[in-house]
């Protein structure tokens, strides 16, 4: 009886020490997930999330201060990926399923260049007094140009379905 108690106590102590030691030796220095989250974000520092740039948003998300849904350019897909990565539940109901793109209504554009100046990815082309065009490939859908436009001629629209981006839907369940 005494031996058994002694053995188990010793064993517990030894294992406890081992674990404590391992915790110190193999301690992870900093939180690597912030870097990972930052790499997932668009990286355009558009500021729509309310944080200073994407790195700020990444830190806030890891700390739990920001929702994973706070990045409109990333859209639903990014929110889903972030929620998975951070292991949180996300309410995706408010998010559009596809990323939105800016579209300039050419008949209303006066060529004032204001949208051109605020675009974080230089996705708007055009010169002074000329109609501006959005280069869809580079647009992140941040919406800054919409706010900047004095003519209200920019609208956010989901990407047009075309033969280039169409792909087969999932087969109906068996």
């Amino acid at each position: 009886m005494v031996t058994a108690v002694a053995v188990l106590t010793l064993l517990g102590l030894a294992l406890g020490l081992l674990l404590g030691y391992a915790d110190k030796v193999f301690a992870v220095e900093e939180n690597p997930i912030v870097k990972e989250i930052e790499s997932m974000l668009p990286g355009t520092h558009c500021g729509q999330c309310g944080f200073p740039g994407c790195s700020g948003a990444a830190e806030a998300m890891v700390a739990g201060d920001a929702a994973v849904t706070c990045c409109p350019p990333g859209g639903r897909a990014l929110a889903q990926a972030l929620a998975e990565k951070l292991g949180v539940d996300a309410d995706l109901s408010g998010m559009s399923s596809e990323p939105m793109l800016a579209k300039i209504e050419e008949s209303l554009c006066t060529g004032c260049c204001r949208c051109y100046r605020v675009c974080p990815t230089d996705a708007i082309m055009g010169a002074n007094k000329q109609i501006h065009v959005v280069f869809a490939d580079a647009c992140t859908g941040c919406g800054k140009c919409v706010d900047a436009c004095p003519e209200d001629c920019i609208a956010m629209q989901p990407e047009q379905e075309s033969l280039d981006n169409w792909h087969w839907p999932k087969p109906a369940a068996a």
Partner: protein
Amino acid sequence: MFGKLKIRGGVHAEERKEQSTGLPIHVLGIPPVLKLPLRQHAGRAADPVVKAGDYVLKGQLIATSTGADVCASLHAPTSGTVTAVGPVTAPHPSSLTTDAITIEPDGLDKGLESLESGDPMQLSPAEIADRVDQAGIVGLGGATFPAALKLKSGARQKIDTLILNGSECEPYLTCDDMLMRERAFGIISGARLIQRAIGARRIVAGIEDNKPDAIEAMKAAAAGFADVSVQVIPARYPMGSAKQLIHAIMGREVPAGGRSSEVGALVHNVATAFAVHQALYDNRPLLSRIVTLSGQCIDTPRNVEVLLGTPVSWLLQHSGGLKETPARIVMGGPMMGQILRTQDVPITKGASGILALAEPEISKTESSPCIRCGSCVNACPMGLVPLEMARHANAEDFEGASEFGLSDCILCGSCAYVCPSHIPLVHYFQFAKGELSAKREQTRRGELTKSLSEARNARLEKEAAEKAAAKAAKAAKAQAAKEAREKAKAEKAAQQEKEQAAQEVKAQANEESGA
């Protein structure tokens, strides 16, 4: 290690070819409208060089393949007026639109004047490739890869064997069969031009053993040339797939991720070879193609030569029509062809057949659970495990599906053809491939926007720095001027002080002397 003339897996599908080989190729007339999509080949869309209202002649270039990337030019199939350059419904399962040139033929079929003559066999390899490029020829077996690019890359590599693909393994389809029967000499002539362009030592025409008439015709046409031979290969789907055909004829496999040139082979379809012949001997660019009309609902199954851009509905009406309402209309063969959800779409360069299939001919759309019977594993010509790929795709684990070789899948449909549970395996693979490519596209875009944003920030910083520098310079200048002014002032003040002192001294002296 692997026996020649055999492929792994595959299926022996019900051929149903005899239905459409009874009649000779019928040349169909000019339809009231032609719609020519700017992209009916693999790669980028061609640039239109005509606009609405233009009058075009038969054979006139209407869209060009400028630049070096993958593209093929387009020509007016007959004379007429361009009525529009804009979206039309694409011959695609999605029924989405694609940009096209619409021509209203005038019925006169006026052609361009023929310019060049002389023996094309005297042309240099590069000249042949250029002429093929100008003719807008693409792979007519279905892959629609621009033929000229294959000639150019072939010329750079060491190609031993030009394989003429006459296997036509898809059930129903007989357009290559009939072409070989009727125009074998043109095919061999075109093939010899290709051989010259790529510098191949020999030509081997691979023809499945279920086409004895075609084999005979091709042998007769090849008889005069020592380096051209006809190889009879067993009929087994998908023998006509380039990788499988190379394996059957050369006894070697194309390395993963590599091109057929790595085993010294280049594959061209017999119809492509014939188009090359027409382009160089007759100065006729690719304006039409042979299309197999078959299926239980077709009144007169046969092969027709149709102008590119001909609407499918018009084609069906003017070649005998439909006997009954089809359960499914397919463009291409039943194994890899695509469903057409509307008949209001044009015939394109890759359309090898129009099948109007009745209910008993088509596969069921309801599926039952997988019973892991392994039929799909045995049928796969690529050595994949389709059931596992589909299982992962269903769970939306696309990386898992890739691990089982999703990217090596050629979508031949052998697995789904034999599946007793009628699982739409190919649909799962299309779905997974689409999701993966969407993901890649998203990553590409993300990287693009990130670099654009960084470039912009760098630019803004530079601008700010420049502004600051300019400001600093200006400030420094002002400072210097100020300092100079102050110095002058100070000097003046000092002078004044001195003078004052001197005066004071003087005055004092005067005072002293006056006292």
